[in-house]
């Protein structure tokens, strides 16, 4: 570069950027260069936007709200479930764009039903991860920071939770909360916190040993303040990754539970799992060659879980200091 004196006076002093902001900027930049993660992020956001839109203005998506959800069924609103009304699903979009992906039980169009299902799946999954994850993070940070007997007990308790497959434990807990969709949420919250507790505990242990926490402690900052001001913010980056991956996992478990028919799902509340099983007809239709009621909602679900996994992996690459170069 050529140094020209005239220019020198023009140059404003570089604005001071907070190191945190700087850090976030580079993180964002790195994330943006990872194309697959970007695609995952875009699709995931799209799903969430659909779900939010559906929650606020269901009519724009052709999806009515809960009470009248069956309003798109041709010929009016069936109030009772009559097996005789089960028509062979068809792919003809005779009834308009809603029928583009065919119909399922009650001759219900699949496409808007899937959109309606999204609201429940994503909403529940978000609630479970946020609440379960939040509880887990707090417990993990505290036990990691305190150490000693608290930590030991916490580790043993999480061990126990890890020793049963989630799905089975959820089935067992459903007996306590009752076999309805909303109690799955309670059950999964109880099951989910240990993952986060483990994750943050390990991080908290290593953060605790760092200089600035030590010095804060020496300066007489209180334990609680120490935990939440100094330790907590520094243990969160793996939590974000886990968080994003779990959003997908929980949707899977959720739909599996619904699929298994263990929760007495309200037939007025479509959910991706129950759409796949199609009121118990999915398999027989499938074998008879009517594949779309079972396969299409599955693909819809798969796209979501794949993209959220892509996003999570991308996040991990960006946030993990070992992989970051």
């Amino acid at each position: 570069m050529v140094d020209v004196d005239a220019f020198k006076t023009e140059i404003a002093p570089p604005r001071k950027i907070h190191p945190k902001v700087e850090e976030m900027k580079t993180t964002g930049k790195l994330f943006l260069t990872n194309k697959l993660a970007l695609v995952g992020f875009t699709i995931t956001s799209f799903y969430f936007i659909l779900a939010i839109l559906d929650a606020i203005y269901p009519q724009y998506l052709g999806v009515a709200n809960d009470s009248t959800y069956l309003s798109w069924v041709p010929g009016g609103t069936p109030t009772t479930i009559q097996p005789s009304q089960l028509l062979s699903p068809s792919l003809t979009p005779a009834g308009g764009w809603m029928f583009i992906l065919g119909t399922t039980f009650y001759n219900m169009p699949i496409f808007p039903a899937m959109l309606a299902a999204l609201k429940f799946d994503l909403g529940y999954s978000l609630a479970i991860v946020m609440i379960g994850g939040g509880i887990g993070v707090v417990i993990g940070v505290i036990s990691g920071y305190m150490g000693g007997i608290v930590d030991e007990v916490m580790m043993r308790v999480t061990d126990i939770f890890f020793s049963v497959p989630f799905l089975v434990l959820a089935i067992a807990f459903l007996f306590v909360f009752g076999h309805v969709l909303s109690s799955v949420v309670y059950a999964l919250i109880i099951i989910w916190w240990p993952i986060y507790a483990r994750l943050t505990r390990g991080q908290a242990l290593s953060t605790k040993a760092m200089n600035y926490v030590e010095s804060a402690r020496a300066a007489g900052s209180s334990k609680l303040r120490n935990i939440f001001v100094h330790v907590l913010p520094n243990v969160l980056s793996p939590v974000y990754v886990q968080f994003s991956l779990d959003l997908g996992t929980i949707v899977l478990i959720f739909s599996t539970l619904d699929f298994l028919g263990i929760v007495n799902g309200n037939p007025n509340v479509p959910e991706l799992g129950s759409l796949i099983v199609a009121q118990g007809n999915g398999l027989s239709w499938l074998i008879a060659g009517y594949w779309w009621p079972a396969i299409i909602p599955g693909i819809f679900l798969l796209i979501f879980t794949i993209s959220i996994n892509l996003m999570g992996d991308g996040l991990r690459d960006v946030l993990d200091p070992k992989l970051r170069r």
Partner: protein
Amino acid sequence: MELRYFILRRILVIIPTIIGLTILVFLIMWAIPFDQLIAPYIHQKGLSRAQATLVVEQQLGFYKNDPVLTYLFYLRDLFSGNWGIMFGSASPYNGPVINAIEIFLPNTIQLAIGAVIVSMAISIPVGTYIGSRPNSLGDQFGRVFSLAGYAMPGFWLAYLLIYLFAKNTGILLPVVPWGGNGLNGYYSSGHLVPWIPIQVNGHPVSDLTSYPTHVLLIDSLLNGNIYWFTKAVEYLILPVLTLTYGILAGLLRFIRAGMVDSINQEYVKTARAKGVPEKTIIKRHVRKNALIPTVTVLGLLVAGLLGGAVAVEFVFGYYGIGYLTVLSAEDLQVWAVMGTTIVFGIVLVIANLVVDVVYAYLDPRIRY
């Protein structure tokens, strides 16, 4: 010699976990409304509510107002095999829970072992291949493949396979037994009827004379009955394939990462400096280092596998403990579900123990 002590120590360490497990399951039971606990007994003999309560209190020692005593009784019952009963018209088995588990569990173990073996047999060569060529076309494909494995719900994959392989859709191989004849009788409410229809005594409908292991594959061989052996193999193919995909995805991903990591290590440089050909470097120096830590994830994957088995057994009507769990849960057979929960826990703990021991055996760096 030393390994023996290591195993002993590990066994001692899992004891608190198992005790904790019993406490957890007990607490769940404690929280369950009492009516549900006595329901199977009412159903079985047509008892009144008070009579059924008495039966539960005396036979199982379940005193609703005394948790500590009840827990002690519960432990006693666990050891003596007094796990309650399951009884209901839609129940997959009528009788003591422990007997049901004895019949159903071996089949799940068979399924799990089959899936682990198949997935290892595939993932090791494939993982080696793609791991030694990072960013190649094969690698990209493998990554997408394993990602899909993570993201795919097991029951949906089962549906897909049924659709692709069932005989009368005529798409691919006629390997599944329920194609073709009388298909319509073979499914009910979203899942196929039991693997091979079971009788009331818990034995499958077949012309074998005895069922020493409850695993058709082995029983038929013990009976010298080749026909049922081939049948058993046929029935195994799709469930094993479905379950395989989930672990295969995890293994593939881990092996690939291990290969990529290990290929950049200094000791590979040393091997190259010795003049070892590339092929041998991959086989001897890189792969071994990549595979040993893979054993540790097997523990995690088995947990996923057992969870996955629940849905997959359900879809295929495969006669295992997951199937038992789901049908019992649908039928509100609380004793059965509590029993299977604890069995799942114990199986998983033992699987992890085995994984740890195998890891210690394989990795020379572990000092036990």
